[in-house]
């Protein structure tokens, strides 16, 4: 062990080196940025959390978004212009996402932004795009982004929203007179899902026996289990996302919760089901925007799967991946129809656009720009019932898209 003085001296040196390094860094930053050469490529910015607990879903989104761009470019591009996708890692952090988005707009001169996976992060992206007047197609679940407070004419929401998914799942799983408990991630997504479930269960006539909010990104859920069991509910709604979903369900199953009650989630995640295996997820019911198994009953899904398989060595697209395809795809369709990237023209087209990219007809409702689309309810299959390793879910219900699924424009605060 060195004596105290040598230690001091050494720290002194490293500190000086650090200072030198820092000033060099500042000098680089201060250098004038080289402007991007003017060309007529259409650039779409795509912030998504490539690192962190939602990375699996994020990478699927990128693959699908790239597929959408590739298919358009193969056909000669949009209005004769090539399309380029600029993917940025938002690190699942609102500040990081806002910075990356601003960079995409200012430095890379993107024509529109699609992306973000976390509900909190998408609201940060929306803040930036709204202030800069850039079109943003969100592909993360949110109820608030369509409400007047967060909405702007540049904001479009391609993803399902908590209101739609929880209502569809509750219809299939909660019956009148049942007791319902909630385990909820303590951030925007969890809160919105909880609100959706409670609204749906009240309409059905079921009773809420308890709500437990857990910290976002927790690794251990065991400490919540004794309490949940003591509430003796018929249904347990677990409203969290990504690895939180996998860990929470796995640990609930360890505690024998499935023998006592049914586990229900607002969104059942393809990748998380893969991450923890069929035995853990068996019988869990949840909502989804897309499932590859739709291909047997839906022509668009079959075409989308085929294109994805061709581009990705035979792999199948996942639920959150499909959002990347429909988000970028619908925007490019609108740009094609508008004959270019003029923001106001593209917005006007998007508001009247009828599109069918992954699973059947969709359109953006004019007042709040929410995509009206079908909602799937899936049940995780038991191991013995799986026909192949990709045969994860049975489709319990597929509610076709209708304006009545959504909260009314008046309720969201829009002029009607």
């Amino acid at each position, binding site marked *: 062990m060195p004596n105290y003085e040598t*230690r001091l001296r050494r720290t002194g040196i490293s500190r000086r080196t650090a200072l030198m390094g820092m000033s060099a860094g500042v000098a680089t930053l201060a250098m004038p940025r080289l402007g991007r050469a003017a060309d007529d490529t259409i650039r779409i910015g795509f912030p998504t959390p490539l690192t962190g*607990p939602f990375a699996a879903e994020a*990478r699927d989104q990128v693959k699908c978004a790239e597929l959408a761009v590739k298919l358009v470019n193969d056909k000669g591009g949009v209005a004769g212009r090539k399309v380029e996708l600029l993917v940025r890692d938002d690190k699942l952090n609102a500040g990081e996402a806002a910075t990356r988005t601003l960079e995409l707009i200012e430095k890379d001169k993107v024509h529109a932004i699609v992306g973000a996976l976390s509900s909190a992060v998408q609201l940060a992206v929306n803040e930036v795009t709204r202030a800069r007047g850039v079109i943003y197609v969100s592909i993360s679940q949110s109820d608030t982004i369509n409400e007047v407070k967060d909405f702007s004419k540049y904001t479009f929401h391609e993803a399902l929203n908590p209101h739609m998914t929880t209502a569809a799942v509750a219809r299939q799983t909660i019956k009148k007179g049942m007791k319902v408990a909630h385990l909820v991630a*303590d951030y925007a997504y969890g809160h919105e899902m909880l609100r959706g479930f409670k609204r749906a269960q009240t309409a059905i006539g079921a009773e809420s026996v308890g709500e437990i909010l857990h910290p976002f990104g927790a690794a251990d859920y*065991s400490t919540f289990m*004794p*309490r949940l069991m003591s509430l003796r509910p018929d249904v347990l709604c677990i409203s969290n996302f990504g690895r939180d979903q996998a860990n929470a369900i796995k640990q609930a199953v360890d505690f*024998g919760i499935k023998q006592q009650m049914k586990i229900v989630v607002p969104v059942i995640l393809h990748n998380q089901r*893969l991450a*923890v295996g069929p035995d853990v997820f068996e019988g869990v019911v949840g909502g989804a925007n897309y499932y590859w198994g739709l291909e047997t009953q839906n022509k668009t899904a079959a075409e989308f799967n085929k294109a994805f398989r061709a581009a990705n060595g035979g792999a199948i697209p996942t639920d959150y991946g499909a959002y990347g395809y429909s988000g970028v795809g619908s925007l490019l369709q609108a740009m094609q129809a508008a004959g270019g990237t003029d923001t106001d023209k593209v917005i006007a087209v998007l508001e009247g656009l009828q599109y069918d990219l992954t699973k059947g007809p969709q359109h953006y409702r004019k007042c709040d720009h929410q995509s009206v689309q079908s909602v799937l309810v899936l049940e995780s299959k038991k191991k013995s019932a799986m026909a192949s390793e990709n045969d994860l879910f049975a489709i319990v219900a597929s509610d076709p898209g209708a304006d009545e699924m959504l909260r009314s424009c008046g309720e969201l605060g829009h002029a009607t």
Partner: protein
Amino acid sequence: MDLSLIIMQLFSGIALGAVLVITALGLTIVFGMLGVVNFAHGALFMIGAYAGLYLASLTGSFWWGLLLAPILVGAFGMLIELVLVRRLYGRSIDDPLLLTFGLSYILVEGVRIVFGSDGIPFPTPSQLIGVVDLGVGFFPKYRLFVIALVAVVLLVLWLMLEKTRVGLIVRAGARDPLIMRVLGVDIGKVWLAIFGLGVGLAALGGVLAGPMRSVNPEMGTLVLAEAFVVTVIGGLGSIVGAVVAGLMVGICISMVALFAPEMATIVMFALMAAVLLIRPQGLFGLKGRA
């Protein structure tokens, strides 16, 4: 709120604490004996989980994974000590810190490249699936097993350090390596073994956590933070401190989860702040060490 719920909550806390103890122990031993803050500890915890899973699937038995993974990863730890860490002894504390910090990135990326970023299912061993009736409620068999195994590992470690000649050399080596060298002890070998032991404990923690949590490349990140908190509360370098603080943090998280669930993670840091205010060196830490 009835008593049985509180008892169940206590059990959850002890099981949680057991995982914390085993990971914090490796961190604190390496710091206490070698003065190295091992920032790769979380990554090695993750490597342990993957190694355990891989060996279990290779041999078809969880038990082989549980036995072999800590040994193999421990040996890998010795290689790290020999090739990398050894060169930095005697330098300031931040050199090995930066080295292991960089190493953790390499390990995580390496696992991403080999196994992918998605999680991999780590099934609970068939003998330990299900719950046990504790009289007041049902508790997962696997978590009871974890508590028992950690208790055994602690006992063995304690006996080794306090009752054997090797333990004596190790303890003396931590106090004054120069005198040990004068006495003819090859202190380099002792340090090698200690680093291997610390890494092996991280790996054991990883294998044990595997069937409870999803196994993924980032699983060590949170664990590293938890292990540091436990180590700081217990006192840097103190083994008893790691045990007491680990259980304390586990039980504290569990009890807070009962009354204010959304605070469950923050309470760990609040506890650390409180302890540092009263005893800056931690509960069992020596003055002047930190």
